[in-house]
């Protein structure tokens, strides 16, 4: 099993993700420059966090037109696992692989903090090993993470079980206080209808080793392990 991590000019979580996959999860993984894509040899692809193209025009939009996205689309269509973390989520939304939009935070500030994230659906390729309702400690670090979608489309997301993660308090309530950026319905992550393409604003790769977390959180690990588990059983 081999996982590709796409690298764009301005990606800055690519190596963290590589480290977690290789040294913590212990699976085969490579960094792949976005202009020289060769995804045929890979079973899954991760679009990492960062600031591709300096977030010019809108976070993720220029990356969405880069050569590697053609192959990412192909993998998504074939049902292979595709994960977008933070800027990767923004790229997936801008490419139309996931619905909605990620807008500037209501506070207008760059927000870098630990959040509590509730698992809303365990049917996806990246959440199969979680119990629904599980609460995870994962940090966010973004300025354009306010998820928005119109009412009709929101209903479709709910009806199709496409809301995967939401910001919640320690009791699992999706309160306004627990919502760091003003996302509609506290949405922190969503998937496509099939559940093989997932995007989330929080950073699981920064919550994969106890030493990096004030809560000794390794909650993000299960996202990567769910992906491998899915590939093993596929």
């Amino acid at each position, binding site marked *: 099993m081999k996982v590709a991590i796409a690298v764009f000019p301005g990606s800055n979580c690519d190596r963290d993700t590589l480290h977690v996959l290789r040294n913590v999860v212990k699976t085969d993984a490579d960094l792949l420059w976005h202009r020289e894509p060769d995804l045929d040899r890979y079973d899954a692809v991760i679009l990492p966090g960062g600031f591709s193209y300096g977030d010019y025009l809108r976070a993720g939009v220029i990356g969405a037109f880069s050569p590697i996205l053609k192959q990412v689309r192909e993998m998504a269509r074939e049902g292979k696992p595709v994960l977008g973390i933070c800027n990767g989520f923004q790229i997936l939304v801008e490419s139309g692989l996931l619905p909605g939009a990620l807008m500037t935070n209501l506070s207008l500030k760059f927000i870098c903090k630990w959040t509590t994230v509730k698992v809303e659906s365990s049917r996806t390729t990246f959440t199969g090993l979680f119990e629904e309702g599980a609460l995870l400690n994962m940090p966010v670090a973004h300025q354009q993470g306010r998820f*928005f*979608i119109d009412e009709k489309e929101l209903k479709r997301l709910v009806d199709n079980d496409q809301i995967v993660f939401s910001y919640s308090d320690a009791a699992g309530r999706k309160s306004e206080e627990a919502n760091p950026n003003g996302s509609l319905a506290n949405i922190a992550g969503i998937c496509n209808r099939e559940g093989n393409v997932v995007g989330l604003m929080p950073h699981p790769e920064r919550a994969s080793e106890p030493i990096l977390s004030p809560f000794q959180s390794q909650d993000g690990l299960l996202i990567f392990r769910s992906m491998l588990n899915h590939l093993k059983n596929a």
Partner: protein
Amino acid sequence: MPVLNKYTVNVAIENKPSIRDPEGETILRDLMIKNGVTQVRKVRTAKLLELEVEAKDEAQAKTITEKMCSDLRIFNPVVSLCKITVTGEAK
């Protein structure tokens, strides 16, 4: 071959009216109202791209820009709209 002219085309990208614009709200609340400007009731911010477009006339410059804005997602149709204005021949 028709002679091509250069036109200045402004593309203003703004949030749809139903979408909140926290930057505009902050400018109104913290800059204008707090400094005593009470006549301004609403502020909406936008991003402006000023283009020079080669075309045979203004209408074609506008059509080229409209298609490009939609094909390259210059604006995000989920939350934004863009207003395209040809302001005249580029100098």
